C-alpha cells in the first residue's frame, strides 16, 4: 500500500467530497439527526477508504501517518458534514483499542467503529471524580473468569447511541496507590445491569449521559491491558486528543468564524474589526501551535505536559470566538433560536471538559516551569 503525501491526499479527498454528496439533511437539528448523519458520513468514508488511512492494517486500516486522519477530520468537520463532538470520539476510542485491547479484539471491533456500524463511548468521569480522575470509585471485582462492575459514570458523551464503552474502573486493594489501582474494560452496553440516562444540559443538546453499572458481568478477555494499566491508558489518550482532535476542532472554529464574518461584514463596518481580528489571532495562534505539535508527534516525539499549552490556547480561543459572536451579533444569542445560541452556551464548557483550565495551569506550573509542589 503506497501512502500519498499529505498535500496529494488532501486534494484527492477534496475532489472526492466534491463528487459525493454528504451534506446533512436541512432543518433537523435534533441529536438523533446528528447521530444518523455521523454514521452515514463514517460509512461513506470507510467504504471509500478515506476513514482507513492513518490507522494500522492490524485494525482494518490502510496504514500511513496519523496526520492523514487530521486531514480527513479537518475536511469533514470544517465543511459541516459531521459535528466535531461525535467525530472526535474516534480519535480517543480507536487508539485505545489498538494500543490496549487483545489484537484479535481490536481487529474485530475497530472497523465497526470507523465504518459507522457502531458507536462507542468513554466511561471515565464520575460524580465524585472530575479533575481528580484517579480517585474514581466504580469497582470491578474478579469472580472466576469474569469481572463484575458496580458504580456510576457521568459526562459520558453519546452513551445513548453507544453499543460499547471503554470503561475505567478501580480494581486495586484499598492500599494500592491510585495510579496503579485502575483497570480499563471494553464493555457491551446491552449487558444486564447497565442503565443510561441522558443529562439535560444548559445548551439544550443532551449529549452527556449518566451510566449506572449494577452487578454488570464483563468477561476477562475484555480487559484492556493488564490489571493496573488503567491510569496509563487514560494518559496515553492525551497525545491523540490533543493533536488530531484539536486540529478538527480548530478547523470547525475557523468555519464558524467564516460564518460570523459573513453575517456581519455588510452591517457592522470597521466597528467589528478589533473583535474579529482578536478572535482570528487567537485561532491562528492555536492553529500554528497545533500544527507544530502534530509534526512533533509525527517525528516520533512523545507528547507530554507541553500539550497543556495547546489545551489552554484552544479553550481560550473557542470562548473568545463565541464571546465575539455575542458582541457583534447583539441580541441573536438571547432572542433568536439559532446555532449561535447553542454554540455560545457549549463554549462555556471549553475550559471545563478534557481537563479544566486550572488543572492545565497547574500542570504547566509544575512540569514546564518546574515551580515545585503547591
Amino acid at each position: 500500500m503506497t501512502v500519498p503525501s499529505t498535500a496529494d491526499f488532501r486534494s484527492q479527498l477534496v475532489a472526492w467530497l466534491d463528487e459525493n454528496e454528504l451534506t446533512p439533511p436541512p432543518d433537523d437539528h435534533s441529536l438523533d439527526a446528528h447521530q444518523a448523519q455521523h454514521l452515514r458520513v463514517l460509512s461513506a468514508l470507510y467504504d471509500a477508504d478515506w476513514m482507513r488511512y492513518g490507522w494500522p492494517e492490524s485494525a482494518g486500516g490502510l496504514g500511513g501517518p496519523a496526520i492523514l486522519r487530521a486531514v480527513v477530520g479537518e475536511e469533514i468537520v470544517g465543511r459541516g458534514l459531521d459535528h466535531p463532538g461525535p467525530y472526535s470520539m474516534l480519535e480517543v476510542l480507536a487508539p485505545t483499542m489498538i494500543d490496549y485491547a487483545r489484537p484479535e479484539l481490536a481487529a474485530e471491533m475497530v472497523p465497526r467503529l470507523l465504518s459507522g456500524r457502531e458507536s462507542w463511548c468513554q466511561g471515565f468521569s464520575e460524580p465524585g471524580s472530575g479533575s481528580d480522575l484517579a480517585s474514581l470509585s466504580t469497582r470491578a471485582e474478579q469472580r472466576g473468569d469474569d469481572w463484575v462492575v458496580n458504580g456510576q459514570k457521568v459526562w459520558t458523551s453519546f452513551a445513548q447511541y453507544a453499543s460499547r464503552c471503554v470503561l475505567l474502573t478501580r480494581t486495586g486493594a484499598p492500599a494500592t496507590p491510585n495510579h496503579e489501582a485502575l483497570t480499563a474494560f471494553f464493555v457491551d452496553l446491552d449487558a444486564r445491569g447497565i442503565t443510561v440516562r441522558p443529562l439535560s444540559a444548559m445548551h439544550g443538546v443532551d449529549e452527556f449521559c449518566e451510566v449506572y453499572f449494577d452487578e454488570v458481568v464483563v468477561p476477562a478477555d475484555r480487559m484492556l491491558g493488564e490489571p493496573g494499566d488503567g491510569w496509563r491508558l487514560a494518559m496515553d489518550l492525551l497525545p491523540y486528543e490533543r493533536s488530531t482532535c484539536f486540529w478538527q476542532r480548530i478547523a470547525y472554529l475557523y468555519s464558524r468564524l467564516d460564518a460570523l464574518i459573513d453575517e456581519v461584514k455588510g452591517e457592522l463596518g470597521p466597528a467589528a474589526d478589533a473583535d474579529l481580528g482578536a478572535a482570528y489571532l487567537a485561532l491562528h495562534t492555536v492553529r500554528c501551535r497545533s500544527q507544530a505539535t502534530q509534526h512533533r508527534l509525527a517525528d516520533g516525539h512523545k507528547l507530554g505536559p507541553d500539550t497543556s499549552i495547546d489545551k489552554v490556547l484552544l479553550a481560550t480561543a473557542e470562548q473568545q470566538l463565541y464571546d465575539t459572536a455575542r458582541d457583534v451579533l447583539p441580541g441573536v444569542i438571547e432572542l433568536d433560536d439559532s446555532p449561535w445560541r447553542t454554540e455560545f452556551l457549549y463554549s462555556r464548557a471549553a475550559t471545563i471538559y478534557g481537563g479544566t483550565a486550572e488543572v492545565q495551569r497547574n500542570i504547566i506550573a509544575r512540569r514546564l516551569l518546574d515551580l515545585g509542589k503547591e
Partner: protein
Amino acid sequence: MKPDAESDSLSLGLLEDGLRKTMLSASGAELDAALADMGWAEMLSDMPEVAIPLVFRLLGETGSHASILNDVVLQSSRREPGGAPALPYAGGAQVVWERHPDSTSPVHPVLGGLPLRRVDEGELLRLAEGRRALGWWLVGSSRTMLSLARQHALDRVQFGRPIAGFQAIRHRLAETLVAIEGAEATLSLPGVDNPDLTALLAKAAAGKAALTAARHCQQVLGGIGFTAEHDLHHHVKRVLVLDGLLGSSRELTRKAGAGLRARGSAPRLVNL
C-alpha cells in the same frame, strides 16, 4: 542526525554563545560595531531565516539593543544598506532608529532609552521581515521577564514558604508561558503563501504576549520589580516601546479584522 546537520547545529550553538556574550557586554552603537565585526551583514543577506530569529531573540533575552532593525527593513525593501529609514510607529507616528545617536545631546526622551527620534514624513517600506524581527525580540524579552519572575517566586519566602507554592502566582506564570509559546508558534510559521499577513499576526501575537508577560511578571515580582535596582523594568519598558514600533498589537489586530471583513472569510495560513 546527519553529520552536516550535527556540525550545523554545533556551529549555531557556538554562534549563539558568542552573540549572547557580546550582547551582554555591549549595547547601542558599540554593539552595532561588534555585530558588524561578527559578520551580521553577511548573516542577514545569506541566511535571514536563521539570523533574524536568533539575533533578535537574543537582543530580547539579554536586554541589549542595536540599530539592526534598520538593516532588516532596508534589505526587505530592496534598499541600499546603511541609513535609517522612517519607521511607522503606533498612532500614525513616524520614527527613525538612529544609528549614531549624538552623545552630546541631552538624555534621550524615549522610554527605556532607545535612540528613536520622531520625524514627520513616512516612507514606503516593506515591513513583514521587520515585524518578524521585532516579534522575536519581544519573545526574547518575555522569556527573560518570565525567568526573572520564576526565580523570584522560588526564592521569595512569605507566610513561611516560597511564593511559588501559591496557586495564584503559579497560574500567572503559567499564563505567561502559554502566551509566549503561542506567539513563538506564530513566529515559527514560514508563511510563504501570505508573508505580510503571517508577519502581521506574528507581531501582534508577540506584542500581546509581551504585554501579558510584563503584567504578570511585574505582579509576581512585587515591590522589588518596581525598583530600578532590579532588571525587570528594563524589559518592561523595552517591550512597551517595541510593541508600538511597526504597529502595535492592538492596531495590527484591528487591521487583521479589517482584512477579514474585506475578504469575507478567515485565511488558513497554516496547513498540515
